[in-house]
């Protein structure tokens, strides 16, 4: 599958010319597995461009709002991202098809939780395995936990694991005395997260937590 992605805007005489480039599924997967930056942004831009409209249409058609569609699409992207980061993403279909199936199942799960007309809802899509739903459930838990810990800890963990900052950068960012102090702070923050996660229901890949 190929996606057209806007990569830059350049002004030539008074005309703005959009340059495009083709991004393939494998390039997107590579970018999602890489560090934060231009490539990752281009990958998400491409997925928004190619997959968002159909998912939004589905959500709106099934009693959802635009805000819910936005949120759900991002959740589906997060699941794709986590599957790729885990090295557990198997490309049996295109990324568009995968995202659509995941978003659809997430939405059906939400609707069932709301207690709506569950019996009239269509069945779960076969493309999305139960692991996606577990990942989503754990994602909800981790977000709750991150909201409970102090801001510095949250920021530090994000900087370390997502922005991939070194301990030296963390030391400078948080005004810590040494790299060892940065390391210790990271351990303490991660410990807090682990303890809070354990107090909650943490799903495992071999069962669902419905």
């Amino acid at each position, binding site marked *: 599958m190929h996606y057209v992605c806007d990569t830059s805007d350049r002004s030539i005489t008074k005309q703005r010319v959009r340059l495009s480039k083709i991004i393939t599924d494998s390039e997107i997967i590579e970018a999602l597995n890489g560090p934060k930056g231009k490539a990752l942004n281009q990958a998400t831009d491409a997925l*928004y461009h190619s997959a968002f409209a159909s998912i939004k249409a589905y959500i709106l058609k099934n009693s959802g709002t635009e805000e819910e569609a936005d949120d759900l699409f991002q959740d589906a992207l997060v699941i794709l991202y986590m599957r790729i*980061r885990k090295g557990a993403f198997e490309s049996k279909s295109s990324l568009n098809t995968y995202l659509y199936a995941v978003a659809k199942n997430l939405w059906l799960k939400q609707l069932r939780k709301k207690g709506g007309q569950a019996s009239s809802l269509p069945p779960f899509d076969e493309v999305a395995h139960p692991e996606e739903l577990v990942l989503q459930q754990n*994602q909800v838990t981790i*977000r709750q936990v*991150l909201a409970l810990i102090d801001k510095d800890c949250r920021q530090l963990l*994000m900087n370390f694991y997502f*922005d991939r900052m070194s301990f030296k950068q963390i030391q400078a960012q948080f005004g810590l005395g040494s790299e060892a102090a940065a390391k210790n702070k990271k351990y303490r923050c991660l410990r807090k997260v682990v303890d809070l996660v354990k107090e909650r229901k943490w799903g495992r890949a071999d069962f669902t937590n419905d």
Partner: protein
Amino acid sequence: MIERVDISLIEKYLAGEVEQLVDEKGSVLTPTEVAQVIEEYHEVIIQLEGAAFKSELEARYGREKGKTYPLKRLYTLAAAVILLVIAFVFLWQSNAGPQFDDYFKHFAQLETNRGEVGTTYTDALVAYSRQRYEEAFVLFSSLESPSNEALFFMGVSALATNQAEAAIEALQKSGLEKPSRYYQQARW
């Protein structure tokens, strides 16, 4: 399981710096327990990355009102702040109390004093005409029996030099007699 093991120890184990994992009581974990701890550790890290990725997506594509991009939000915020500042300044100015400049106005004196060149009164009038109010006020004040006109100009000179009490006194005196030519201005 992961809660029973030191996080730094897990990372050392993954980095190959230690060969076994022990729990908080010092017991060595079995291979099954080790596998479980490692799986849980990776799950936490992946979930943390996922949460950070979600924050990035929200910041980049927005969430609350469809596609609200950060830059657009910034422009909206800037426009709102500018509007608020303009509204505040407008309201503040319209509600502000009367200012000295709101009341002070130079009244041209049209008197000509032929043959009186060099007298205190003419000097005072010249100073007043040239809007040298401090000098004019001093000169008008030194007149022994100032006329209504002199009192009026003295009052205006006092007003121009922020001497409110002197201004009131001089203007009141100048306007006491209704027939005075400066009665209306003094009343004002």
